[in-house]
C-alpha cells in the first residue's frame, strides 16, 4: 500500500498548499459517512468507502489510507469510528474528521475494523479516483508521477480508469507511463512489458531514464527494448544538457561582460591598465549593500525596488572613486602604463583594506527582491530569474554605453582621443577632462557590475580579486578599443568555459581556457578585433 500512502500524503499536501481548490464538505456529513465504515460486514464497508469517495472531500484519502493500514477502530459504546494509537495497554483515540483527541479507551472498549483484499482494492480505487481523477490537473499530474516512482501493481486498474477519463494530453501520457512502470514491475506477459517500455520512453525525462536503467541489463526482448529506449532518451537529454550549458555559459559571459566592459573603456581610451578595476566592482557591491540597508531600516516598503535605487548610487560612488584615483594618481603616470599598473595595484590593496576596516572582513548579505527570485523551466533547462535579469542588464548596459559613445559629445571626444591623442588635443579637445570623465564612466560601469554581482556572489572585500584576471582576459581576447570585441570575447569565454566544464572539470576547464588565451595572444597580439592604423603600432 506504499503508493496509497504516497497519494494520500500528496493529496493532503496539495490540499494544504492550495486551499482554494480543496474540496470540503461539512464535518457532520463527513462524520456520518465515517461512522458507516464501522457498521460491520465487508459489503457495508465497501459501500461506505464508495460513499466517502463520492464526497470528494480532501480528507478522505488520509482516512482511507489509515483504514487500509488497520489503524481505525470502532468504539463499542456508541459505534463512533476513531483513528487509534497504542498508549501502553490502552488506545489513544483521535477524531478522524476534526483531528481532535478523544481521550483514552481500554482495549476492551474498542474493536478494529477488519480489512480484507476486497476492501483494500476498494480503498485503492477510491484514493486513486480522488487523486488521479481529481478535478485539479496539477493534483492529477502529481499523482501520476507518484505512481511512476512507486511502481505499484495495485494502481493499474485505477490508472486504467483515469487514463480513459483524462483529457489533458501530457497528463495522460504521464499516466500511461505510470501504468507502464507498474506493469513492468508485475508478472505481465513480455509483449505487454515491451509496449510499456515504449510508453515510458515517450516520456523522455530523467526519471524515465532512471527507471529504464533498472531494465537495461534484463534478458530477452524487454532488455533490448529498454536499452534502445534508454539510448534514445540519453541522446535527447544530452541535447538539453548542451542547451543548459549554453545558458550557463551565456550567464557567465554576461557577468564577464559587465566586469570587463568598464575596463575595456579605460584600457582602450587611455591605454591605462587599471588593476583597481575589480575594487570598483566591489565598491559598487558595497554601495548596493549600504543602500539596501538604508531602505530596509527606513523605507521597508521600497525593498522590492532597492536594486533599482542602488543602481545610481553604485554608479555614482564608483565613478567618484574612479575620478579621484585618476586625478590623484593616474594622471601623473600617463605614457607609463607599467607604472600605472603598479600604482593602481597599490590603490586596490588600500581600497580592499579600507572596505575591510569599514564593513568587516566577513561576507555581507544583499537581499533578492521578490521579482528576482525563483526559477522556471524551458524544456529541461532551468532558468533562474536572477541570471535572466543579469543577462538583460548586461546587454542594456552594453547598448547604453554604445549609445553614449556614438551619440554624445563626450563619446565623440572619447573616440577621438582613442584614435589619436595628439591630434585630438590639437583640435581643441581637453584631453585631461576627457580622461577623467572616461575613467569615471569606466569605474561607474564597474559599480553597476557590482550591483549585479551582489546578487550572485559573496559581497566581501575580495570580490574584485576574483574578476580582475578574467576581465583582463576578456579585454585582451576581444581586442582593445572595440566594445563589440569585448561583447564577443565575454560571451565566447563564458560559453567556452561552461562547455568545457562537464568534460574537464571546473578547474581544468579554466586552465585550458587560460592557456588557450595565452596562445591566442601569440597569434593575434592585439586581440580578436584589433584597431588598425598607425596610432596603434609601436
Amino acid at each position: 500500500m506504499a503508493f496509497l500512502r504516497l497519494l494520500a500524503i500528496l493529496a493532503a499536501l496539495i490540499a494544504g498548499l492550495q486551499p482554494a481548490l480543496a474540496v470540503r464538505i461539512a464535518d457532520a456529513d463527513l462524520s456520518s459517512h465515517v461512522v458507516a465504515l464501522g457498521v460491520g460486514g465487508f459489503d457495508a464497508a465497501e459501500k461506505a468507502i464508495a460513499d466517502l469517495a463520492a464526497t470528494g472531500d480532501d480528507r478522505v484519502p488520509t482516512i482511507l489510507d489509515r483504514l487500509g493500514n488497520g489503524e481505525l477502530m470502532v468504539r463499542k459504546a456508541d459505534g463512533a469510528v476513531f483513528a487509534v494509537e497504542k498508549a501502553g495497554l490502552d488506545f489513544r483515540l483521535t477524531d478522524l474528521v476534526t483531528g481532535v483527541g478523544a481521550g483514552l479507551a481500554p482495549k476492551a472498549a474498542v474493536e478494529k475494523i477488519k480489512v480484507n483484499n476486497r476492501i483494500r482494492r476498494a480503498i485503492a480505487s477510491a484514493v486513486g479516483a480522488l487523486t488521479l481523477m481529481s478535478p485539479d490537473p496539477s493534483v492529477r499530474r502529481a499523482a501520476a508521477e507518484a505512481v511512476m516512482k512507486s511502481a505499484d501493481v495495485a494502481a493499474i486498474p485505477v490508472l486504467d480508469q483515469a487514463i480513459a477519463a483524462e483529457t489533458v494530453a501530457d497528463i495522460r501520457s504521464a499516466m500511461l507511463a505510470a501504468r507502464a512502470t507498474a506493469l513492468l514491475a508485475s508478472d505481465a506477459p513480455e509483449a505487454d512489458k515491451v509496449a510499456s517500455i515504449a510508453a515510458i520512453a515517450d516520456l523522455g525525462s530523467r526519471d524515465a531514464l532512471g527507471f529504464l536503467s533498472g531494465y537495461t541489463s534484463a534478458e530477452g526482448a524487454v532488455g533490448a527494448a529498454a536499452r534502445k529506449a534508454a539510448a534514445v532518451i540519453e541522446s535527447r537529454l544530452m541535447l538539453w544538457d548542451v542547451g543548459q550549458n549554453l545558458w550557463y555559459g551565456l550567464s557567465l559571459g554576461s557577468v564577464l561582460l559587465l566586469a570587463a566592459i568598464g575596463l575595456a573603456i579605460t584600457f582602450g581610451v587611455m591605454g591605462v591598465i587599471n588593476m583597481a578595476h575589480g575594487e570598483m566592482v566591489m565598491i559598487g557591491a558595497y554601495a548596493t549593500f549600504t543602500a539596501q540597508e538604508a531602505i530596509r531600516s527606513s523605507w521597508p516598503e521600497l525593498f522590492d525596488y532597492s536594486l533599482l535605487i542602488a543602481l545610481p548610487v553604485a554608479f555614482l560612488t564608483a565613478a567618484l572613486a574612479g575620478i579621484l584615483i585618476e586625478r590623484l594618481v593616474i594622471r601623473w603616470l600617463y605614457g607609463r602604463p607599467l607604472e600605472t599598473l603598479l600604482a593602481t595595484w597599490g590603490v586596490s590593496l588600500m581600497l580592499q583594506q579600507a572596505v575591510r576596516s569599514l564593513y568587516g572582513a566577513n561576507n555581507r548579505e544583499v537581499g533578492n527582491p521578490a521579482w528576482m527570485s525563483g526559477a522556471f523551466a524551458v524544456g529541461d533547462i532551468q532558468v533562474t530569474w536572477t541570471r535572466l535579469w543579469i543577462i538583460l542588464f548586461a546587454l542594456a548596459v552594453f547598448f547604453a554605453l554604445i549609445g553614449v559613445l556614438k551619440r554624445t559629445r563626450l563619446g565623440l571626444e572619447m573616440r577621438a582621443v582613442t584614435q589619436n591623442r595628439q591630434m585630438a588635443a590639437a583640435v581643441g579637445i581637453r584631453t585631461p577632462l576627457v580622461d577623467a570623465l572616461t575613467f569615471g564612466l569606466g569605474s561607474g560601469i564597474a559599480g553597476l557590475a557590482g550591483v549585479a554581482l551582489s546578487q550572485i556572489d559573496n559581497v566581501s572585500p575580495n570580490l574584485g580579486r576574483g574578476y580582475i584576471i578574467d576581465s583582463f582576459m576578456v579585454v585582451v581576447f576581444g581586442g582593445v578599443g572595440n566594445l563589440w570585441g569585448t561583447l564577443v570575447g565575454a560571451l565566447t569565454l563564458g560559453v567556452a568555459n561552461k562547455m568545457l566544464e562537464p568534460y574537464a572539470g571546473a578547474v581544468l576547464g579554466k586552465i585550458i581556457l587560460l592557456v588557450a588565451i595565452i596562445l591566442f595572444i601569440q597569434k593575434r597580439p592585439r586581440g580578436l578585433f584589433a584597431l588598425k592604423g598607425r596610432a596603434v603600432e609601436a
Partner: protein
Amino acid sequence: MITTFLIDSLDRRGRIVVGLLVALALLVPAGNLLVPEGNVFHVSTYQLTLCGKYLTYALLALSVDLVWGYCGILSLGHGAFFALGGYAMGMYLMRQIGTRGVYADPLLPDFMVFLNWKELPWFWQGFDMAWYALLMVVLVPGLLALVFGWLSFRSRVTGVYLSIITQALTYALLLAFFRNDMGFGGNNGLTDFKDILGYPIQAPGTRAALFAASALMLAIGFVIASAVVRSKLGKVLVAIRDAESRTRFIGYRVEHYKLFVWTLSAAMAGIAGALYVPQVGIINPSEFDPAASIEAVIWVAVGGRGTLVGPLIGAVAVNFGKTWFTGVLPEVWLYALGALFVVVTLFLPRGIVGLWDKLVTGRAKPAVEANGAGRQTGEAA
C-alpha cells in the same frame, strides 16, 4: 679566466655588495653557531632563517630587475618560476623522507598514499637524486620561460599585453597546482621535510649552511647579472628597453636578446625558490598567486630598478617592513604596502638607490630609466 672576467665586470659598488655578501655568508652562521647566546653578536636561529629567506627574495628581485629594469619586460608572473624551482626542490626533499612519513611508504610521499595512488608518477622519477633535482631547479623554470618567451617575443607581444599574459600564466599554474590530481600535493603542497643531502633539515648546522648557500648564490647571481648588463649584450638590452623598434631597425634580433635574458632570469628565480623551500619548510600553490609576483615587482621598484643593488635593498627592506608590520600592526600592512606602490611609482621612479645617488653622492646619473621607459611605452601607447 672566466672568474677574472666576471670580477672585472663589477663596478666599485658591485664589489662592495659581493664582498658584503661573502662576509655575511661567513659571519652570520658563525654568529649563530659559535657565539654563545646572550652575546650581542649572537644570531638566533629564527633571525638566521628569516635573513636567509630575505636573501632568496633578494635573488628573486634581482631576476625581476634583470628583465624589467634592463629590458623593459614587466613580468607579473616571476613568482611562477620561483615556485617551480621551489617545487623541484620540494620534490627532492619529499623523496628524502622515505619511510619516516606517516604512512611509512618507502617510495610514495604521504599525500599520494592518502590519495590511494599505487605508483610514483613519471614526473616524480629521478627526484631522489640530488643532482637531478638541482638540474630540474634550473631546467623546469628555464624551459617554461624559453617556450613562453619564444612564443611571445617572436610574435612581438610587448608592454602591458605581455604583463597580462605572464599574470595569466602564473594564475593558470596556481589553479593547476591546487588540483590533487596533478600529483603535487594539491592545496597543502609539499611539507614535513626531514633531510637535505643527508643532513637533518632542522639542525642548526644545516640551517647555517643553507643561509651561507643563499648568500653565496645571491653573490654569484649578482656577479652574473653584472657581467650581463655591463657586456655589449647588456647595452643592447637597455637599447631594447628604451626604444625597441629603433633597436630592431638598426638590425638587432630583438627577440633573441629578450629570450636570452628572460630565460636566464627565470632560471635565477628558480634557484631562489629552491633555496627558499628548505628554509621555510613548505611549498604550496599560494606561491603562484599573481599577487605574490606583483609584490616581487614592488621590491625592485622600491630599491631602484635598472640598478643591480636596488632590488637587493628593496627586497630586504620591504620584507623586513612586512615582518615588522604584520607582527605589530597587521591591519596597517596592506595600507602601507598599497601606499608604497603609489608613492614609489609617483615620487621615486628610481627607488632608494636613485634617491641615495641624488641626496648623498650628488652625482645624479641621467635618469635614463624613467625617461627611457616613458619613451618606449609612449611609442606603444
